[in-house]
């Protein structure tokens, strides 16, 4: 294999820069996506008029390719006065995409909170807000954790698609180095190993978190 360690070493700043950007977009996008997804799930549950429009929005996001959404946002955006830089567009697109999946997870979580717990809260004279804050959300958080962790890990490798709209993340940086130095297949192997290791590590961290939080699982 003609892959030169010296070449990787000499381009280390670029590789690390791409790696850093991948991590930042992934983490920030997931946090923002979870917040937005939660908000959507709550609104759909509690504000009757919003259920249908939000459901339609989620349906569109989940029924179309991420790449098409990015193209619409990035190349279509300027035609409606929304001209975003690649990183901004990438982060926004990634957040919206993730939010659709997170909101579905939260919705399933809300539905899984035992009805009796809510009724118990009502009997104790808690307000709707208190029931939401003190009973539904904590119970749901524990219930949805495995699905949430799984989704977060899966979204890590979706960030590779952002390279197509010129976001200088890991895939973009390593494949550019490969192209400039005519080491195509080698750079692909490097990319595959990079992502595989990242996903395995993220999955391992997620499982640790799940084990820690499993003790809070409500009795059903």
């Amino acid at each position, binding site marked *: *294999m*003609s892959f030169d360690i010296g070449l990787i070493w000499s381009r280390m700043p670029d590789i690390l820069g791409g790696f850093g950007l991948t991590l930042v977009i992934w983490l920030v996008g997931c946090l923002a996506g979870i917040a937005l997804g939660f908000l959507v799930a709550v609104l759909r549950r509690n504000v009757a008029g919003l259920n249908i429009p939000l459901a339609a929005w989620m349906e569109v996001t989940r029924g179309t390719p991420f790449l098409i959404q990015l193209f619409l946002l990035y*190349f279509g*955006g*300027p035609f409606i006065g929304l*001209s975003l*830089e*690649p990183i901004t567009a990438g982060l926004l697109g990634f957040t919206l995409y993730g939010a659709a999946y997170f909101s579905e997870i939260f919705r399933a979580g809300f539905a899984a909170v035992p009805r009796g717990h809510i009724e118990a809260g009502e009997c104790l004279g808690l307000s709707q807000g208190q029931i939401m804050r003190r009973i539904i959300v904590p119970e749901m958080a524990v219930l949805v954790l495995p699905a949430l962790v799984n989704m977060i890990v899966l979204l890590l490798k979706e960030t590779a698609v952002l*390279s*197509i*709209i*010129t976001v*200088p993340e890991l895939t*973009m940086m390593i*494949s*550019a180095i490969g*192209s*400039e130095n*005519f080491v*195509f*297949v*080698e750079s692909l*192997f490097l990319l*595959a*190993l990079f992502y*595989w*290791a990242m996903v*395995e*590590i993220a999955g*391992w961290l997620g499982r640790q978190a799940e084990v820690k939080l499993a003790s809070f699982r409500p009795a059903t």
Partner: protein
Amino acid sequence: MKRRLFCTLTGATAVAGAMSGFSRAARAQDALTQMKANGVLRIGTETAFAPFDFIDPSGKHVGFNLDLFAALGKDLGVKVTYTLLPFEGLLPGLEARRFDLVGGPLTITKARMERYRFLPPVSEGTVALLKRRGDSSITKPADIAGKTVGAGKASAQLAQLRAFTETLPGKTSIREYVGNNEAYADLAAGRIAAVGNSFPNVNYVATQRPQVFEVVTPPFGKKTYFGYLGRKDADSAPLLDVLQAALLKLRADGRLAGLQKTWIGQSIETPEAVTAPEV
């Protein structure tokens, strides 16, 4: 868990090593024999390189390349097939023997000549800048200093643009695009100040959308030529010899100049053989 990860990683590296060893061992039939046996000339090209190669609004694959390869195919009595890839996929595809000649065409550079064999040039490829029509902040190439400009990822035009911006004061940032069309779209949208591409390309784009774009004259790059290229190995040599002879015939009987006039707007002085490139 850590051990499992380590095992899988070393395993994958071993597989990778074995496969590349395989590549050296594998020997296909020589490319000319293959072309004659199948009656097919296999070309790999990108469709984001107007006027050389693009998709027209009716969905048809057209351009300078198509007409030229059709003429070559007719002379050689073979059918031409195309593999349409993003630009950065072309050289890997050639090395993987997905096809025997890369359309494009590509700028003839020293680095590429070391690794591939170019056919005689079909056009000049000197790099020029495209700007938004009426952008008075750019009247000569050096005016892009401190702005953001774009070029195709892994292209020779990008390398030249990079070299050029390094001579300019301030920090000029360069954005790399998977396809040139996306770079033009970003220029139109105002995300970047200029696109660096060969003069024939930017000139074509400017004539297609004169209300939107304008070429910054003069071209800033070193004088370069565009050519088609194939693999440098012994298997490909006989095929490339045949293609070279056929291409020189098109050049001699004026068909090449005719195609240049049709697609680029003027006939272009190109040398009969690849000369030592300046870049």
